[in-house]
């Protein structure tokens, strides 16, 4: 089996190229979304495995996701490195390429986005680049599938041992070369390390690479550890940087060719003039999100969901019931399938259109290049609460799924800022909460559905920001933070890329419908059909009723007067989608219309809104709790997150219900 590691700067189209190269793939991390964990795929009819790693600027990691890439290189014996570069910004992309070439494995450099380069009136002579860099160089334009076939053929048809091993030796200053030779010789002699690896290790050590310094310390590489102070005092890092920069400038100058320009890059500047406008920037940001919600809830998502619901609760439910009767299925089993599984799982599946539209919108924002601008225009607001604009991206991704959002927080440099972002992420209203919002807004606010849902989303953002400010004061977060955002050129979103992004994100929801939502539905059906005396025909004597009624006095002050709603809230801890399916089961209905009519008797608009606020903020789902634990490396923070969110949810819905009741 041949392993190809895909490495490169962020915004070089690495994931698009990965998707074009591979036919099937699987995430190595448990969650889909941005590449925050490595992702593996294979090239059809071959034993070539391609590993997509998070984007990195250098091999010396600042963020947690960058560490994933570097650790992969150190811990795995990769056969070929496919270095994806943005041809239009080759100068800084080659800084990473040099580090990869010095690693000594065969390297193929893909000059991606080659069309963007040509539009500037510049081109590079590939043979000159290959000669100077000592590796294979290919040109691609992954968005248009250009050059992909040639790249795939190269990987498919050339045995690994025929690839030229990278042998780049830069002309570092004399004092560096002297120390490099000394350390390398000792490492090879005393520590059984290959000469290439020893050379790379020493250069990286001189370059203050944190992971390499830990690696050297862990392996007790004395020839390096003893010289650390000297390397730092002599500013080797600066000298290495200068040498690399000079080499790159010489290389690019010698390979540079002028071609006729078909420049339309002015488009990016024109769009930026509007979307990052000092006055209009933030209102445009809000407007884009409003449009997203209108598309998901009013214009496209809801009408499709309604049709799917009519189909599932009508023909499917009736046909299944008739079929089960005709084959003589026991009433118990019939009830489990029709009232439990079809009502519960089906009730959640009807929301797929809304969720897919929302995910498609998020994918369009990611693919077009707007996300980086969103980080920029929100930075000043985020700065006031001790975070930076980059924290806004995980929060936005959290609209899809809190788990992915928390994972995306890995791109934040400072540990304290990362922790705060992790802790406030569950307040972002994930797509799993949509089904229950949709039911309540349809029941109580039919004319203002999008506006009410948007207000819930914004309330989540406000609570998240307020808590961030609180944590800033508690954790004594200092002002200085790394906030350097690259603004990529805008791209017209492509359907295939948007579809893949939407499906990647949505399939998790579909998978959950078949697993945890199915299990939760069966559980709630069992709890509502069994009581201390065994199988019960009257739901009021079931375990669910007992639990709900026991806790009812606690919930009355926030406007919840039905035990069914309380039991449903409990199941929401499994996964938020389960709340609506539980309500379907608990209220014994397969039809949303019937359920909406039932709500009308149990809630008022203000108590319904208070309940939605409670659902927005109370306990994160199991998957999110687990992610908080794994990302913070501490059970304490996971437990804290559970209790603090219950407290906040209760306090806020209490205030909303009590104050609202005074006026309504």
């Amino acid at each position, binding site marked *: 089996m041949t392993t190809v590691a895909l490495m490169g700067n962020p915004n070089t189209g690495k994931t698009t190229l990965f998707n074009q190269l591979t036919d099937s793939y699987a995430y190595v991390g448990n969650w889909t979304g941005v590449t925050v964990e490595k992702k593996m795929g294979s090239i059809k009819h071959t034993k070539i495995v391609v590993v997509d790693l998070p984007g990195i600027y250098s091999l010396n990691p600042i963020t947690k996701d960058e560490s994933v890439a570097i650790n992969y290189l150190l811990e795995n014996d990769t056969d070929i490195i496919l270095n994806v570069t943005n041809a239009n910004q080759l100068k800084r992309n080659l800084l990473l390429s040099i580090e990869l070439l010095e690693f000594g494995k065969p390297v193929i450099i893909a000059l991606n986005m080659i069309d963007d380069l040509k539009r500037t009136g510049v081109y590079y002579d590939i043979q000159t680049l290959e000669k100077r860099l000592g590796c294979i160089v290919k040109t691609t334009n992954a968005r248009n599938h250009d050059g992909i076939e040639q790249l795939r053929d190269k990987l498919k048809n050339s045995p690994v041992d025929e690839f030229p091993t990278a042998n780049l030796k830069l002309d570092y200053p004399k004092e560096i070369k002297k120390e490099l030779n000394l350390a390398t010789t000792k490492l090879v002699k005393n520590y059984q390390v290959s000469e290439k690896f020893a050379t790379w290790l020493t250069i990286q050590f001189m370059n203050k690479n944190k992971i390499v310094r830990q690696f050297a310390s862990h392996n007790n590489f004395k020839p390096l550890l003893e010289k650390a102070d000297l390397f730092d005092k002599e500013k080797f890092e600066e000298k290495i940087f200068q040498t690399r920069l000079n080499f790159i400038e010489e290389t690019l100058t010698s390979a540079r060719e002028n071609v006729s320009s078909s420049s339309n890059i002015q488009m990016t500047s024109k769009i930026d003039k509007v979307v990052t406008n000092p006055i209009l920037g933030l209102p445009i940001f809000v407007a884009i999100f409003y449009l997203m919600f209108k598309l998901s809830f009013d214009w496209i998502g809801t009408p499709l969901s309604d049709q799917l619901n009519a189909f599932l609760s009508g023909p499917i439910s009736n046909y299944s019931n008739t079929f089960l009767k005709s084959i003589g299925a026991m009433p118990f089993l019939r009830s489990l399938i029709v009232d439990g599984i079809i009502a519960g799982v089906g009730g959640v599946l009807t929301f797929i259109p809304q969720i897919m539209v929302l995910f498609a919108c998020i994918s369009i924002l990611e693919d077009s290049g707007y996300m980086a601008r969103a980080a920029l225009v929100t930075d*000043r607001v985020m700065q006031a609460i001790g975070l930076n604009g980059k924290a806004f991206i995980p929060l936005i991704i959290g609209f899809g799924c809190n788990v992915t959002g928390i994972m995306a927080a890995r791109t934040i440099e400072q540990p304290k800022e990362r922790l705060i972002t992790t802790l406030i992420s569950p307040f972002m209203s994930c797509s799993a909460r949509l089904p229950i919002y949709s039911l309540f807004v349809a029941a109580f606010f039919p004319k203002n559905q999008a506006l009410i849902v948007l207000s819930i989303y914004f309330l989540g953002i406000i609570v998240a920001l307020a808590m961030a400010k609180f944590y800033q004061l508690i954790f004594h977060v200092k002002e200085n933070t*790394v906030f350097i955002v690259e603004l990529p050129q805008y791209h017209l979103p492509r359907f295939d890329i948007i579809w893949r992004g939407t499906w990647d994100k949505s399939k998790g929801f579909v998978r959950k419908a078949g697993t945890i939502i199915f299990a939760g539905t069966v559980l709630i059906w069992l709890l509502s059909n069994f009581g201390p005396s065994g199988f019960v025909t009257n739901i009021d004597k079931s375990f669910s009723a007992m639990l709900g009624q026991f806790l009812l006095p606690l919930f009355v002050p926030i406007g919840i007067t039905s035990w069914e709603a309380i039991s449903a809230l409990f199941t929401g801890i499994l996964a938020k989608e389960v709340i609506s399916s539980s309500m379907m089961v608990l209220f014994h209905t397969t039809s949303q219309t019937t359920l909406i009519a039932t709500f009308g008797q149990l809630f008022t608009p203000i108590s319904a809104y208070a309940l939605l606020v409670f659902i927005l903020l109370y306990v994160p789902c199991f998957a999110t709790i687990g992610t908080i634990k794994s990302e913070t490396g501490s059970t304490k923070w996971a437990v804290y997150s559970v209790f603090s969110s219950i407290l906040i949810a209760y306090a806020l819905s209490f205030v909303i219900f009590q104050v609202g009741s005074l006026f309504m």
Partner: protein
Amino acid sequence: MQLISEQSINKSYYVKDLDYLDDQTKQRLHSLGIHVGSQMTIMRFLPFHGPVIVEIDHQKIGLRYAVFKLLMGGIDQ
């Protein structure tokens, strides 16, 4: 201190200093190919001393105002 004026927009300046930046910021700027002597064109200032958009080597980058000021040598234009 005098504010960097809007008149600097679309004008080019050379990066004067990286020494006063913290290590991580300096490292990230280096990774983006930015060094003392790099030519930077100011594209936009966001309000209330928010980020500044600059263009260096055909790439647009958003920086915190404080970092931008240090790159300019700590002196306002």
